[in-house]
Protein backbone atom coordinates (compact mmCIF):
# COMPACT_ATOMS: atom_id res chain seq x y z
CA UNK A 1 0.00 0.00 0.00
CA UNK A 2 1.05 3.52 -0.49
CA UNK A 3 2.02 5.63 2.47
CA UNK A 4 -0.81 7.58 4.13
CA UNK A 5 -1.13 11.17 2.90
CA UNK A 6 0.07 13.51 5.64
CA UNK A 7 -1.72 16.51 7.13
CA UNK A 8 0.94 18.78 8.59
CA UNK A 9 0.28 21.90 10.67
CA UNK A 10 3.09 24.45 10.60
CA UNK A 11 3.96 26.57 13.61
CA UNK A 12 5.84 29.78 12.87
CA UNK A 13 7.66 30.59 16.08
CA UNK A 14 9.08 33.95 17.06
CA UNK A 15 10.40 34.87 20.47
CA UNK A 16 8.82 31.78 22.03
CA UNK A 17 5.32 32.24 20.60
CA UNK A 18 3.44 30.86 17.63
CA UNK A 19 2.65 33.51 15.06
CA UNK A 20 1.20 33.45 11.59
CA UNK A 21 1.54 35.96 8.84
CA UNK A 22 -0.81 36.55 5.99
CA UNK A 23 1.40 36.65 2.89
CA UNK A 24 4.30 36.37 5.36
CA UNK A 25 3.57 39.77 6.86
CA UNK A 26 1.15 41.28 9.40
CA UNK A 27 1.94 38.75 12.09
CA UNK A 28 -0.82 37.70 14.48
CA UNK A 29 -0.47 35.77 17.71
CA UNK A 30 -1.65 32.16 17.80
CA UNK A 31 -0.38 31.07 21.17
CA UNK A 32 1.99 28.80 23.04
CA UNK A 33 3.76 26.49 20.58
CA UNK A 34 4.12 23.50 22.92
CA UNK A 35 0.42 23.51 23.79
CA UNK A 36 -0.49 23.93 20.15
CA UNK A 37 1.83 21.09 19.05
CA UNK A 38 0.30 18.82 21.68
CA UNK A 39 -3.21 19.71 20.62
CA UNK A 40 -2.47 18.99 16.96
CA UNK A 41 -0.91 15.62 17.81
CA UNK A 42 -3.99 14.67 19.83
CA UNK A 43 -6.21 15.81 16.96
CA UNK A 44 -4.47 13.39 14.58
CA UNK A 45 -1.88 15.55 12.82
CA UNK A 46 0.56 13.23 11.04
CA UNK A 47 3.60 15.39 11.57
CA UNK A 48 4.52 18.96 12.57
CA UNK A 49 6.78 21.65 11.20
CA UNK A 50 8.26 24.20 13.62
CA UNK A 51 9.79 27.21 11.93
CA UNK A 52 11.93 29.66 13.85
CA UNK A 53 11.23 33.02 12.25
CA UNK A 54 13.17 35.02 14.85
CA UNK A 55 15.08 37.98 13.49
CA UNK A 56 17.64 38.34 16.30
CA UNK A 57 20.00 35.95 18.06
CA UNK A 58 18.35 36.82 21.36
CA UNK A 59 14.98 35.64 20.07
CA UNK A 60 16.62 32.62 18.45
CA UNK A 61 17.88 31.38 21.81
CA UNK A 62 14.25 30.80 22.85
CA UNK A 63 13.80 28.16 20.13
CA UNK A 64 15.92 25.26 21.43
CA UNK A 65 13.98 24.89 24.73
CA UNK A 66 10.74 24.80 22.71
CA UNK A 67 12.12 21.99 20.53
CA UNK A 68 13.04 20.04 23.68
CA UNK A 69 9.63 20.61 25.23
CA UNK A 70 7.85 19.49 22.06
CA UNK A 71 10.02 16.36 21.83
CA UNK A 72 9.21 15.57 25.47
CA UNK A 73 5.47 16.09 25.26
CA UNK A 74 4.52 15.25 21.68
CA UNK A 75 4.55 11.70 20.28
CA UNK A 76 4.51 12.43 16.54
CA UNK A 77 7.46 13.44 14.35
CA UNK A 78 8.43 17.02 13.71
CA UNK A 79 10.71 18.99 11.42
CA UNK A 80 12.47 22.16 12.53
CA UNK A 81 13.70 24.96 10.34
CA UNK A 82 14.65 28.61 10.26
CA UNK A 83 18.16 30.00 10.21
CA UNK A 84 19.97 26.62 10.18
CA UNK A 85 23.26 27.24 8.36
CA UNK A 86 25.64 24.65 9.80
CA UNK A 87 25.95 20.98 10.76
CA UNK A 88 26.55 22.12 14.36
CA UNK A 89 23.21 23.95 14.64
CA UNK A 90 21.43 21.01 13.01
CA UNK A 91 23.09 18.62 15.46
CA UNK A 92 21.89 20.66 18.44
CA UNK A 93 18.32 20.62 17.17
CA UNK A 94 18.38 16.88 16.43
CA UNK A 95 19.89 16.24 19.86
CA UNK A 96 16.99 18.26 21.29
CA UNK A 97 14.58 15.78 19.70
CA UNK A 98 13.79 17.13 16.23
CA UNK A 99 13.34 14.39 13.61
CA UNK A 100 14.20 16.36 10.51
CA UNK A 101 16.06 19.56 9.68
CA UNK A 102 14.73 22.02 7.14
CA UNK A 103 17.05 24.43 5.33
CA UNK A 104 16.08 27.22 2.98
CA UNK A 105 18.00 30.46 2.33
CA UNK A 106 21.25 29.12 3.78
CA UNK A 107 21.18 26.23 1.27
CA UNK A 108 20.67 28.64 -1.61
CA UNK A 109 23.63 30.71 -0.42
CA UNK A 110 25.77 27.63 0.15
CA UNK A 111 24.36 24.50 -1.54
CA UNK A 112 27.16 22.33 -0.03
CA UNK A 113 25.22 22.61 3.25
CA UNK A 114 22.70 20.07 1.90
CA UNK A 115 25.52 17.61 1.11
CA UNK A 116 27.09 18.14 4.53
CA UNK A 117 23.84 17.61 6.44
CA UNK A 118 22.89 14.61 4.37
CA UNK A 119 26.36 13.06 4.80
CA UNK A 120 26.24 13.57 8.55
CA UNK A 121 22.66 12.63 9.40
CA UNK A 122 21.39 10.71 6.37
CA UNK A 123 19.22 12.24 3.70
CA UNK A 124 15.98 11.07 5.32
CA UNK A 125 16.77 13.76 7.89
CA UNK A 126 17.26 16.64 5.44
CA UNK A 127 14.34 18.68 4.20
CA UNK A 128 15.01 21.44 1.70
CA UNK A 129 12.39 24.18 1.88
CA UNK A 130 11.82 26.20 -1.26
CA UNK A 131 9.68 29.32 -1.48
CA UNK A 132 8.41 29.84 -5.01
CA UNK A 133 6.46 32.51 -6.81
CA UNK A 134 5.21 32.73 -10.38
CA UNK A 135 6.90 35.59 -12.22
CA UNK A 136 7.01 36.74 -15.83
CA UNK A 137 9.86 34.30 -16.46
CA UNK A 138 8.18 31.33 -14.75
CA UNK A 139 8.37 29.89 -11.21
CA UNK A 140 11.37 31.35 -9.41
CA UNK A 141 12.98 30.81 -6.00
CA UNK A 142 12.36 33.54 -3.44
CA UNK A 143 14.13 34.20 -0.14
CA UNK A 144 13.80 36.46 2.91
CA UNK A 145 10.27 35.40 3.68
CA UNK A 146 9.31 35.64 0.04
CA UNK A 147 10.34 39.24 -0.39
CA UNK A 148 13.40 38.71 -2.53
CA UNK A 149 13.31 37.11 -5.97
CA UNK A 150 16.58 35.27 -6.60
CA UNK A 151 15.64 35.02 -10.27
CA UNK A 152 16.62 31.36 -10.07
CA UNK A 153 14.44 28.79 -11.82
CA UNK A 154 12.59 26.84 -9.12
CA UNK A 155 12.61 23.47 -10.89
CA UNK A 156 16.34 23.67 -11.58
CA UNK A 157 17.10 24.44 -7.94
CA UNK A 158 14.86 21.62 -6.73
CA UNK A 159 16.59 19.10 -9.01
CA UNK A 160 19.98 20.29 -7.74
CA UNK A 161 18.87 20.13 -4.09
CA UNK A 162 17.78 16.51 -4.50
CA UNK A 163 21.05 15.61 -6.25
CA UNK A 164 22.92 17.13 -3.33
CA UNK A 165 21.06 14.95 -0.84
CA UNK A 166 17.69 16.47 0.04
CA UNK A 167 15.52 13.62 1.32
CA UNK A 168 12.31 15.62 1.25
CA UNK A 169 11.07 18.93 -0.16
CA UNK A 170 8.82 21.47 1.50
CA UNK A 171 7.62 23.69 -1.30
CA UNK A 172 5.70 26.84 -0.45
CA UNK A 173 3.90 28.76 -3.12
CA UNK A 174 4.11 32.37 -2.03
CA UNK A 175 1.17 33.42 -4.14
CA UNK A 176 -0.91 30.95 -2.23
CA UNK A 177 0.43 31.54 1.27
CA UNK A 178 -2.27 32.85 3.55
CA UNK A 179 -4.59 33.57 0.64
CA UNK A 180 -6.56 30.28 0.81
CA UNK A 181 -6.99 29.95 -2.95
CA UNK A 182 -5.72 26.36 -3.10
CA UNK A 183 -2.32 24.72 -3.62
CA UNK A 184 -0.15 25.47 -6.69
CA UNK A 185 -1.07 22.11 -8.23
CA UNK A 186 0.42 22.84 -11.67
CA UNK A 187 3.85 23.38 -10.15
CA UNK A 188 3.68 20.25 -7.98
CA UNK A 189 2.81 18.22 -11.07
CA UNK A 190 5.98 19.47 -12.74
CA UNK A 191 8.14 18.77 -9.68
CA UNK A 192 6.93 15.19 -9.21
CA UNK A 193 7.91 14.43 -12.80
CA UNK A 194 11.47 15.55 -12.11
CA UNK A 195 12.28 14.19 -8.65
CA UNK A 196 11.43 11.05 -6.64
CA UNK A 197 11.54 12.26 -3.03
CA UNK A 198 8.53 12.95 -0.77
CA UNK A 199 7.07 16.42 -1.20
CA UNK A 200 5.14 18.54 1.27
CA UNK A 201 3.01 21.18 -0.42
CA UNK A 202 2.39 24.44 1.37
CA UNK A 203 0.66 27.71 0.66
CA UNK A 204 -2.96 28.31 -0.23
CA UNK A 205 -4.83 25.69 1.81
CA UNK A 206 -8.29 26.97 2.71
CA UNK A 207 -10.71 24.07 2.39
CA UNK A 208 -10.79 20.26 2.51
CA UNK A 209 -11.39 20.37 -1.24
CA UNK A 210 -7.98 22.01 -1.71
CA UNK A 211 -6.31 19.05 0.03
CA UNK A 212 -8.40 16.58 -1.92
CA UNK A 213 -7.39 18.24 -5.21
CA UNK A 214 -3.73 18.19 -4.16
CA UNK A 215 -3.79 14.49 -3.27
CA UNK A 216 -5.85 13.31 -6.25
CA UNK A 217 -4.17 15.41 -8.95
CA UNK A 218 -0.54 15.03 -7.80
CA UNK A 219 1.66 12.42 -6.08
CA UNK A 220 2.57 14.88 -3.32
CA UNK A 221 2.43 13.03 0.03
CA UNK A 222 1.98 15.89 2.49
CA UNK A 223 -0.16 18.99 2.74
CA UNK A 224 0.88 21.77 5.11
CA UNK A 225 -1.18 24.63 6.50
CA UNK A 226 -1.13 27.01 9.42
CA UNK A 227 -3.81 29.65 9.82
CA UNK A 228 -6.80 27.42 9.01
CA UNK A 229 -5.73 25.15 11.88
CA UNK A 230 -4.58 27.91 14.27
CA UNK A 231 -7.83 29.83 14.02
CA UNK A 232 -10.05 26.75 14.02
CA UNK A 233 -11.45 27.45 10.56
CA UNK A 234 -10.81 23.87 9.47
CA UNK A 235 -10.01 21.65 12.48
CA UNK A 236 -7.77 18.66 11.66
CA UNK A 237 -10.31 15.97 12.72
CA UNK A 238 -12.93 17.54 10.45
CA UNK A 239 -10.49 17.81 7.53
CA UNK A 240 -9.33 14.21 7.91
CA UNK A 241 -12.89 12.93 8.22
CA UNK A 242 -13.82 14.60 4.94
CA UNK A 243 -10.69 13.42 3.13
CA UNK A 244 -11.04 9.81 4.31
CA UNK A 245 -13.88 9.23 1.85
CA UNK A 246 -11.56 9.52 -1.15
CA UNK A 247 -7.96 9.74 0.09
CA UNK A 248 -5.72 7.34 2.02
CA UNK A 249 -5.73 9.22 5.33
CA UNK A 250 -4.80 7.87 8.74
Amino acid at each position, binding site marked *: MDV*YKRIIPCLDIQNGRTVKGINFESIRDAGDPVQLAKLYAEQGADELVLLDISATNEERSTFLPIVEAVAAQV*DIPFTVGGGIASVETA*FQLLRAGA*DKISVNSSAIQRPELITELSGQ*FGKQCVVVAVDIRKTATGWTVHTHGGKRDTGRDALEWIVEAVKRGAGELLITSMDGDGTKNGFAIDFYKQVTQRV*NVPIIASGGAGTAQHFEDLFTETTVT*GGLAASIFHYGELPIPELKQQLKQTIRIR
Partner: protein
Amino acid sequence: MEVVIIDYGAGNLFSVQQAFKRLGIEPIVSNDSDVIKSASHVVFPGVGHAQTAMEQLKSKQLDVLIPQLKQPVLGICLGMQLLCESTEEGNVQGLGIFRSNIELISDEVIVPHIGWNDVQFSDQKGTNAYYFVHSYKASICEDTWGICDYGQPFSAALKRNNFFGVQFHPEKSSEQGARILTEFLQQ
Protein backbone atom coordinates in the same frame (compact mmCIF):
# COMPACT_ATOMS: atom_id res chain seq x y z
CA MET B 1 13.10 -2.59 35.86
CA GLU B 2 16.13 -0.82 34.39
CA VAL B 3 15.93 0.27 30.79
CA VAL B 4 19.23 1.22 29.17
CA ILE B 5 19.39 3.09 25.87
CA ILE B 6 22.69 2.45 24.12
CA ASP B 7 24.47 5.71 23.32
CA TYR B 8 27.01 5.14 20.58
CA GLY B 9 26.84 8.61 19.06
CA ALA B 10 24.13 7.93 16.49
CA GLY B 11 21.78 10.76 17.44
CA ASN B 12 18.12 11.10 18.33
CA LEU B 13 18.30 9.39 21.70
CA PHE B 14 16.32 12.17 23.34
CA SER B 15 13.05 11.23 21.64
CA VAL B 16 13.39 7.56 22.60
CA GLN B 17 14.24 8.56 26.15
CA GLN B 18 11.20 10.86 26.32
CA ALA B 19 8.89 8.14 24.98
CA PHE B 20 9.84 5.87 27.90
CA LYS B 21 9.44 8.77 30.31
CA ARG B 22 5.88 9.22 29.05
CA LEU B 23 5.34 5.58 30.08
CA GLY B 24 6.64 6.37 33.57
CA ILE B 25 10.07 4.78 33.04
CA GLU B 26 13.29 6.70 33.63
CA PRO B 27 15.75 5.11 31.17
CA ILE B 28 19.53 5.27 31.50
CA VAL B 29 21.52 6.43 28.49
CA SER B 30 24.93 4.78 28.40
CA ASN B 31 27.72 3.23 26.34
CA ASP B 32 29.24 1.46 29.34
CA SER B 33 29.38 -2.35 28.94
CA ASP B 34 28.65 -3.07 32.60
CA VAL B 35 25.67 -0.72 32.69
CA ILE B 36 24.28 -2.24 29.48
CA LYS B 37 24.85 -5.83 30.70
CA SER B 38 23.03 -5.21 33.98
CA ALA B 39 19.93 -3.68 32.35
CA SER B 40 16.59 -5.49 32.40
CA HIS B 41 15.81 -4.14 28.91
CA VAL B 42 18.17 -2.71 26.29
CA VAL B 43 17.16 -0.29 23.57
CA PHE B 44 19.40 0.06 20.53
CA PRO B 45 18.31 3.13 18.55
CA GLY B 46 19.99 4.87 15.64
CA VAL B 47 19.58 7.39 12.88
CA GLY B 48 22.11 8.13 10.16
CA HIS B 49 24.52 6.15 8.04
CA ALA B 50 25.11 2.42 8.66
CA GLN B 51 28.85 2.60 8.04
CA THR B 52 29.45 5.50 10.44
CA ALA B 53 27.24 3.87 13.06
CA MET B 54 29.05 0.52 12.78
CA GLU B 55 32.43 2.24 13.16
CA GLN B 56 31.18 3.97 16.29
CA LEU B 57 29.91 0.64 17.70
CA LYS B 58 33.27 -1.00 17.00
CA SER B 59 35.25 1.80 18.60
CA LYS B 60 33.36 1.11 21.83
CA GLN B 61 33.45 -2.70 21.37
CA LEU B 62 29.66 -2.67 21.43
CA ASP B 63 29.63 -4.84 18.28
CA VAL B 64 30.92 -7.69 20.46
CA LEU B 65 28.74 -6.95 23.48
CA ILE B 66 25.32 -6.51 21.84
CA PRO B 67 25.00 -10.00 20.26
CA GLN B 68 25.86 -11.56 23.63
CA LEU B 69 23.05 -9.82 25.52
CA LYS B 70 20.51 -12.17 27.13
CA GLN B 71 17.84 -9.67 28.21
CA PRO B 72 15.19 -8.29 25.80
CA VAL B 73 16.84 -6.00 23.23
CA LEU B 74 14.88 -3.64 20.97
CA GLY B 75 16.56 -2.23 17.85
CA ILE B 76 14.88 0.83 16.39
CA CYS B 77 15.32 1.98 12.77
CA LEU B 78 19.09 1.91 12.02
CA GLY B 79 19.51 -0.07 15.25
CA MET B 80 17.29 -2.80 13.82
CA GLN B 81 19.17 -2.71 10.51
CA LEU B 82 22.54 -3.12 12.26
CA LEU B 83 21.21 -6.27 13.97
CA CYS B 84 20.76 -7.87 10.52
CA GLU B 85 23.29 -9.89 8.51
CA SER B 86 24.46 -7.18 6.15
CA THR B 87 23.49 -3.84 4.70
CA GLU B 88 23.90 -2.39 1.22
CA GLU B 89 24.42 1.01 2.84
CA GLY B 90 28.21 1.32 2.72
CA ASN B 91 28.40 -2.51 2.23
CA VAL B 92 28.58 -3.06 5.95
CA GLN B 93 28.52 -6.42 7.75
CA GLY B 94 25.82 -6.36 10.44
CA LEU B 95 25.75 -7.98 13.88
CA GLY B 96 24.04 -11.03 12.38
CA ILE B 97 21.15 -11.58 14.80
CA PHE B 98 18.30 -11.40 12.29
CA ARG B 99 18.57 -13.46 9.08
CA SER B 100 17.68 -10.45 7.00
CA ASN B 101 19.63 -8.30 4.58
CA ILE B 102 19.21 -4.55 4.25
CA GLU B 103 18.61 -3.32 0.71
CA LEU B 104 17.91 0.04 -0.86
CA ILE B 105 14.19 0.64 -1.42
CA SER B 106 13.52 0.38 -5.17
CA ASP B 107 12.95 3.75 -6.82
CA GLU B 108 9.69 2.50 -8.34
CA VAL B 109 8.21 4.17 -5.26
CA ILE B 110 9.05 7.53 -3.69
CA VAL B 111 12.32 7.26 -1.68
CA PRO B 112 12.87 7.82 1.24
CA HIS B 113 9.74 6.12 2.59
CA ILE B 114 8.51 8.94 4.84
CA GLY B 115 5.22 8.90 6.68
CA TRP B 116 2.70 6.58 8.31
CA ASN B 117 2.13 3.12 6.89
CA ASP B 118 0.37 -0.08 7.93
CA VAL B 119 2.14 -2.98 9.57
CA GLN B 120 0.71 -6.49 9.76
CA PHE B 121 2.18 -8.34 12.73
CA SER B 122 2.18 -12.13 12.48
CA ASP B 123 0.71 -12.47 15.98
CA GLN B 124 -1.99 -9.81 15.62
CA LYS B 125 -5.25 -9.44 13.80
CA GLY B 126 -5.65 -6.36 11.60
CA THR B 127 -3.08 -3.68 10.94
CA ASN B 128 -1.89 -0.54 12.69
CA ALA B 129 -0.14 2.50 11.22
CA TYR B 130 3.33 3.55 12.40
CA TYR B 131 5.70 6.32 11.36
CA PHE B 132 8.51 5.38 8.99
CA VAL B 133 11.45 7.38 7.70
CA HIS B 134 14.06 5.31 5.83
CA SER B 135 15.72 4.65 2.47
CA TYR B 136 16.84 1.06 3.18
CA LYS B 137 14.58 -1.87 4.03
CA ALA B 138 14.98 -5.29 5.63
CA SER B 139 14.22 -8.28 3.42
CA ILE B 140 11.56 -10.79 4.44
CA CYS B 141 13.13 -13.74 6.30
CA GLU B 142 12.38 -16.40 8.91
CA ASP B 143 12.61 -13.75 11.64
CA THR B 144 10.03 -11.43 10.06
CA TRP B 145 7.51 -10.43 12.72
CA GLY B 146 5.71 -7.54 11.01
CA ILE B 147 5.29 -6.77 7.31
CA CYS B 148 4.82 -3.39 5.65
CA ASP B 149 4.02 -3.21 1.95
CA TYR B 150 5.67 -0.25 0.22
CA GLY B 151 6.29 -1.06 -3.43
CA GLN B 152 7.23 -4.50 -2.18
CA PRO B 153 6.67 -6.18 1.18
CA PHE B 154 9.54 -5.73 3.64
CA SER B 155 10.24 -6.57 7.29
CA ALA B 156 8.85 -3.69 9.36
CA ALA B 157 9.54 -5.73 12.49
CA LEU B 158 11.87 -8.66 13.25
CA LYS B 159 12.05 -11.04 16.18
CA ARG B 160 14.53 -13.73 17.20
CA ASN B 161 14.87 -15.11 20.73
CA ASN B 162 15.40 -12.10 23.02
CA PHE B 163 16.00 -9.69 20.11
CA PHE B 164 13.31 -7.46 18.66
CA GLY B 165 13.66 -4.90 15.90
CA VAL B 166 11.35 -2.31 14.36
CA GLN B 167 12.01 -0.26 11.25
CA PHE B 168 9.41 2.34 12.19
CA HIS B 169 9.74 4.81 15.08
CA PRO B 170 7.58 3.67 18.02
CA GLU B 171 8.65 6.82 19.90
CA LYS B 172 7.00 8.92 17.18
CA SER B 173 4.02 6.70 16.41
CA SER B 174 1.48 8.10 18.83
CA GLU B 175 -0.44 5.63 21.04
CA GLN B 176 0.23 2.70 18.67
CA GLY B 177 3.95 3.26 19.14
CA ALA B 178 3.60 3.58 22.91
CA ARG B 179 1.87 0.18 22.88
CA ILE B 180 4.89 -1.41 21.15
CA LEU B 181 7.21 -0.02 23.84
CA THR B 182 4.86 -1.17 26.61
CA GLU B 183 4.76 -4.68 25.17
CA PHE B 184 8.55 -4.71 24.93
CA LEU B 185 8.77 -3.80 28.62
CA GLN B 186 6.49 -6.73 29.44
CA GLN B 187 8.99 -9.17 27.84
